């Protein structure tokens, strides 16, 4: 069961998208998991064949539990011990596996009964139908992963029964509470803020959008995200993960963007390789991410990979946000709303659109001096929006 954020201690397997004997590729979605915050598509980070499925749909297991065993390509078969395989633990890919972002098409959250790969005996199929169980959600133990009558009978025993669990919103609140309390308890935060003149950036954006079709327009939020990503290259210690004893610098910049969920709660999935994406790519991927976050179809790597978080409350009328760091990250960048303010420029007091950028950072990893350099770098990047 992958760890999909500091606020996750367990997850419920909703269903498998693969069966025993199926070949899997790196980045492929193999299962769906329910967490307190969302339903997540679990990706696999190895190439091989599914050898054994250990957890059945409906089971809730702690983070770290091995869900299934993959026989990795090019490796000899190992003993069936839970410690041998790694591929399906949902662990993020190793740093060396950095590849350009290639969005995987959104898939349905569970397999439908008509899925062509389904191998099931007629009698098992009938029983599943009688019991109201989706046969595609049953892990087959027969030859070639065929679902047997016994598999259906077992699945019937572990079908989730209605229990008085707190609803998703309440559970999400609890999860956020736990992570934020831990953050405030363990991380010595320091906070900085600066006011940035956005006139050049907004002018550039307005001119740029005039040239674009409606579908290709940019929102100013992507300029902020890209500026943060580029500034992190200049102050890389803020793009780190706290390992428990020390900070581990992350070679790639994966900005987690805080997305509010209607009805309450928030989630901060990663825009992978944020610093390497063009504004057009970022816009496309950001739109997709927001849509999927609210639809509940995020991928496991999007929740496990963020190296820093960016949050913006400007649209709620907030002028400055001093956020709480999301462990194990070591920094969070906040933006308020764009406001017209008197601004001194070349001896004149003029009206300029400005924004307050803030940094919440872990004092174990960086000092105010470096944090200040980071905010200055964000400012510089936004003064040259055409280079973002």
């Amino acid at each position, binding site marked *: 069961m992958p760890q999909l954020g500091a606020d996750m201690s367990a997850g419920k397997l909703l269903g498998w998208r693969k069966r025993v004997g199926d070949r899997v590729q790196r980045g492929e979605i193999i299962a769906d998991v329910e967490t307190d915050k969302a339903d997540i598509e679990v990706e696999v980070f190895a190439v091989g064949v599914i050898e054994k499925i250990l957890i059945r749909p409906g089971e809730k297991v702690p983070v770290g539990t091995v869900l299934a065993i993959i026989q990795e390509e090019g490796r000899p078969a190992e003993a069936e011990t839970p410690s041998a395989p790694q591929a399906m633990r949902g662990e993020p890919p190793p740093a060396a596996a950095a590849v350009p972002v290639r969005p995987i098409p959104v898939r349905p959250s569970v397999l439908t009964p008509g899925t062509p790969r389904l191998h099931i005996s007629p009698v098992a199929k009938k029983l599943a139908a009688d019991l109201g169980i989706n046969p595609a959600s049953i892990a087959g133990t027969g030859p070639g992963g065929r679902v047997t009558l016994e598999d259906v009978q077992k699945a019937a025993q572990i079908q989730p029964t209605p229990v008085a669990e707190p609803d998703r919103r309440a559970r999400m609140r609890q999860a956020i509470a736990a992570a934020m309390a831990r953050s405030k308890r363990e991380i010595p935060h320091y906070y900085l803020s600066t006011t940035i003149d956005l006139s050049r950036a907004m002018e550039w954006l*307005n001119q740029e*959008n*005039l040239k674009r*079709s*409606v*579908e290709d*327009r940019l*929102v*100013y*939020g992507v300029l902020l995200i890209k500026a943060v990503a580029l500034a992190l290259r200049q102050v890389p210690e803020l793009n780190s993960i706290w390992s428990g004893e020390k900070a581990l610098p992350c070679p790639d910049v994966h900005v987690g963007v805080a997305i*509010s969920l*209607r*009805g309450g709660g928030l989630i901060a999935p990663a825009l992978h390789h944020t610093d390497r994406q063009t504004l057009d790519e970022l816009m496309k991927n*950001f*739109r997709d991410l*927001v*849509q999927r976050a609210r639809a509940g179809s995020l991928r496991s790597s999007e929740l496990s990979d963020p190296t820093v978080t960016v949050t913006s409350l400007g*649209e709620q009328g907030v002028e400055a946000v001093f956020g709480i760091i999301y462990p194990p990250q070591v920094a969070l960048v906040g933006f308020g709303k764009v406001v017209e303010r008197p601004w001194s420029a070349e001896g004149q007091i003029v009206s300029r659109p400005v924004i307050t950028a803030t940094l919440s950072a872990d004092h174990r990893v960086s000092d105010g001096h470096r944090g200040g350099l980071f905010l200055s770098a964000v400012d510089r990047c936004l003064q040259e929006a055409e280079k973002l």
Partner: protein
Amino acid sequence: MTKDKIRETVLRALGGVAPEADLSQIKPDLRIRDQLDIDSMDLLNFVIGLHKELKVDIPEADYPRLATLDGCIEYLASLRDLR
């Protein structure tokens, strides 16, 4: 296009942006953003939705005119292409 048809189209586009919202409860004279908790990304998706359905190209400068349901209908009805 009649205002009733425009209203239907606007509500359909809003439904695409905020599928969980009960659009029958929208008050036509209050800000859509506040009622549906939508942000600038949603607003852009709403404008794209209108563009696809009505083939209108709404400039960013006119976004404030889309603030309420009544405002949307009046604005879209005023566009020459939809008269």
